C-alpha cells in the first residue's frame, strides 16, 4: 500500500530523526513510502492566526500533493488534526476542494493511530530502554482521540517502563504563536508541566507532537535539567534518537 508521509515543517527543519524513524516504521510495516518533495506546511499557523486565505492555499497544496496515495501518515497530532478535523471547514466555501478535503481527511492518520489501527504493528526493532512518561498533546488527544494508541505501542517494548504522570492531558502551553505572544503565561504553564514530569522521575518524556517537544525540552534545559530526554514516540519505537542521522 502506498503511504504518503507528511513529515511536517517542524520535523523537517528541527528534528529530521523523527521523519527517518517514521519512514523506518512504515517500511517495517511493508508500506511503500511516498514523500512528495514539494511539501511544506499544512497551513495551521495561518489558520490559527485568522489568515484564512493563506491557510486555504496551503490546504489546497497539501490536497494536490497527496492525491494518489492510499493513506497519509503524519508524525504529529496537531498537523493531523488540522487536516482531519479542520480542512473541510476551511475549504467549505470552495465546493470542489471541500469534497477533496473530506477524501483526504478519511485517509489521513496520525502515526501511532496508523500503526495500531491500520497495520496493527506489535513488534519493534529498537535499542531504547528506560522509564518514560507520556504527554498527551492537545490536538492528538482532543481532536483525534489519540490516547491508547501510543500506550499500546509502547507496551510492546520489553525494556520500557511507562509511568503515567500527573496532568498528562494538560496543555503544555505551546499554542503556536501563543508561546511568544503571551510568553509569560506560556512559560508558567510549561513550568507546571515540567514540575509534573520531574515528580514522575523518568528518563524520558515521550510525546507525539513537535510543538510540545520544543516547548517542554526548551523549558527543562532552561531550568537546568539536562538529564530528562524529550523524545518523539517514533524515535523511541525505532531507537533513532537524533545522533545517528548526522
Amino acid at each position, binding site marked *: 500500500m502506498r503511504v504518503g508521509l507528511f513529515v511536517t515543517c517542524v520535523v523537517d527543519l528541527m528534528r529530521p530523526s523523527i521523519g527517518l524513524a517514521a519512514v523506518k516504521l512504515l517500511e517495517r510495516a511493508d508500506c511503500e513510502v511516498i514523500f512528495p518533495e514539494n511539501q511544506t*506546511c499544512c497551513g495551521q499557523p495561518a489558520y490559527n492566526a*485568522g489568515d484564512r486565505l493563506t491557510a486555504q492555499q496551503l490546504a489546497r497544496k497539501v490536497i494536490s500533493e497527496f492525491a494518489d496515495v492510499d493513506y497519509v501518515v503524519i508524525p504529529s497530532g496537531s498537523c493531523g488534526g488540522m487536516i482531519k478535523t479542520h480542512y473541510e471547514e476551511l475549504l467549505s466555501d470552495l465546493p470542489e476542494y471541500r469534497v477533496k478535503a473530506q477524501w483526504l481527511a478519511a485517509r489521513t492518520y496520525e502515526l501511532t493511530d496508523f500503526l495500531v489501527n491500520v497495520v496493527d504493528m506489535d513488534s519493534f526493532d529498537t535499542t531504547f530502554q528506560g522509564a518514560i512518561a507520556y504527554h498527551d498533546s492537545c490536538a492528538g488527544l482532543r481532536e483525534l482521540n489519540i490516547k491508547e494508541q501510543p500506550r499500546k505501542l509502547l507496551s510492546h517494548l520489553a525494556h520500557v517502563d511507562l509511568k503515567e504522570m500527573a496532568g498528562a492531558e494538560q496543555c503544555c502551553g505551546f499554542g503556536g504563536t501563543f508561546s*511568544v505572544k503571551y510568553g509569560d503565561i506560556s512559560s508558567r*504553564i510549561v513550568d507546571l508541566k515540567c514540575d509534573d514530569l520531574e515528580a514522575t522521575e523518568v528518563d524520558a518524556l515521550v510525546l507525539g507532537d513537535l510543538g510540545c517537544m520544543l516547548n517542554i525540552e526548551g523549558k527543562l534545559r532552561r531550568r537546568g535539567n539536562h538529564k530528562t530526554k524529550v523524545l518523539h514516540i517514533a524515535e523511541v519505537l525505532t531507537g533513532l534518537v537524533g545522533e545517528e542521522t548526522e
Partner: protein
Amino acid sequence: MELTSHQFKSVSSAKLKDVKLQKALYKAKDGFVVPRAKVVAELDNFEEIRQAAADVRDHGLAHLDVYLEEWEKQAQAAGTIVHWAESYEELNALVVKIAQDNQVKKIIKSKSMVGEETGLNRYVEGHGIEVKETDLGEYIIQQADEHPSHIIAPATHKSKDDVADLFAEKHQRPRLDDAEKLTHEAREILRPHFLDADMGITGANFMIAETGSTVILTNEGNGRMTTTMPRVHVAISSIEKCIPTLDDFALMMRLLPRSATGQVISNYVSMTTGPKRAKDNDGPGEFHVIILDVGRTRVLGSDLRDALRCIRCGACMNHCPVYQNVGGHAYGWVYPGPIGSVLTPAYNGIENAIDLPNAATLCNQCGVVCPVKIPLPDLMRKLREKQYERNLKSSAEKWSLRLWAYLALRPKLYSIVTRIMARVGKLLGGDSRRINHLLFGGKDWTRHRDLPAPRGRTFRDIYLNRNKTTNR
C-alpha cells in the same frame, strides 16, 4: 462594568507574580476539576446528554422570538410584570424606578452576572438606595469593592486570610481564622438585612417559556430568602436564557450543577412563577422580570451564535490552562476564561478586546468539558479571522506570517531557506545543542526557554539524498 480587556497582557503578567492569588487559584482548580470529573464519570451517557442539551439550546435560540413571547404570555398570566431593556442604562433605570415606586430603601441581592454587566449596584446606590449582596462570595467582593473573578465563585481569587482581614476591618470585630466561623459572622451580619429589606433582586439561570417561570440555583439559601422575604422581587436576566419547556429544564439540571461545582444537584433550585397568590403564605406582593438584550440579538445573527448556548457553569474557565494561571480579573470584563474570550469581544466590539481570543492555546479543554458543546476554540479562531479581516493584527505578526507563507507556497525556495536555517541553527546551538539567545521574534521564545537546536540538515535533504544513494 468598565471594560479593561485591552490591559490583558500587562495585568496577566502581574497576576502570574501575585503569590497569594496563585495559591488561591491552585486551590480552586482542584476544588472544581476533581469533583466535576467524579460526578460526570457516574453518568454512563454524559456525551448523549451534552448533545441533547446542545440541541435544545440550539432549537430555543433558533426560535427565540416565539419562546420569549410565550414566556412573556405565561409570566403575565401568573401576575409577573415584564420589562424589556435594550441598554444597560435602561435596565438600571427600570430597577430604580421600581424601587422608587415602592418606596424601597434597602435592597438585598442574590448573584446576577447581568447585574455585573450593567453596573447595577453602583447605579442604584447612586440613587440613595442601599444594596446588600447576600451570596457569600458576592458579599466578600462587595465589601472589598472588587469585581467577581469567576462567574459562579466570585471571590475565588481570595484566600481565607484575605477574607479574615477584610471582615475584621469591615465588621469591626476580632479577626477570625476559621472558614466556618467567618461564614457564621457574615450570616449574622446579613440576617437583619434579609428581615428589613424592601426589595430583592436576583438573576435568573433560565426562563422557562412553558410556565413563564424564572429559575435560580444557589447553595446558600440566600437566593430563596431574596425571592420570598421582601415586598418586591425583581429578577434580571437576558434574552438567551429562555428555554422552551420544563422537560428541557430538567435536562439542563442534569448538566449544570455537575459541570459547575461537581454537585448532582444544587442545594436550592428556586423556581418563581408570578408574585404571592392569595392562598400563599409568603412571597413578594410584586414580581418584576427585566430582560436584557445588549449584544445578544447581534450575536444571534452572527457566526458566533453557538456562544449563546452558554448556561454559565464555569467549567470552561475551571479547565482552562490560561485562566488557571492568571485568574478572572485579567480578562477585564464580566465573563472570564474561554467563554469570556468570546462574549467580551462579541458584546463589546472586537477591537476592544483584541488579546482575549488570541490569549489561548486552543487546547480545546474548554470545548470538551462544555456541557452544551460550545466549540470555544473554533469561535476564538473566528474572532481571530475577523481581527485579520479588519486589519487589527500587529504588523510584526502580520509580516512574519506573510514571509513564512510566501516561502511555504514556493517549495524550491523553501527547501533552500530551511537548509540554511538548519545549518545556521546547528552552529548557534553549538555543543550544548541549545539556542538560548534568539533575536527579533525568537527573543520572546528564548526569554523563557531554550530552543533545542536543529540538527544541521533538513529531513528533506537527508531522505532525498539517501534515496538517490540507494537508487545508484
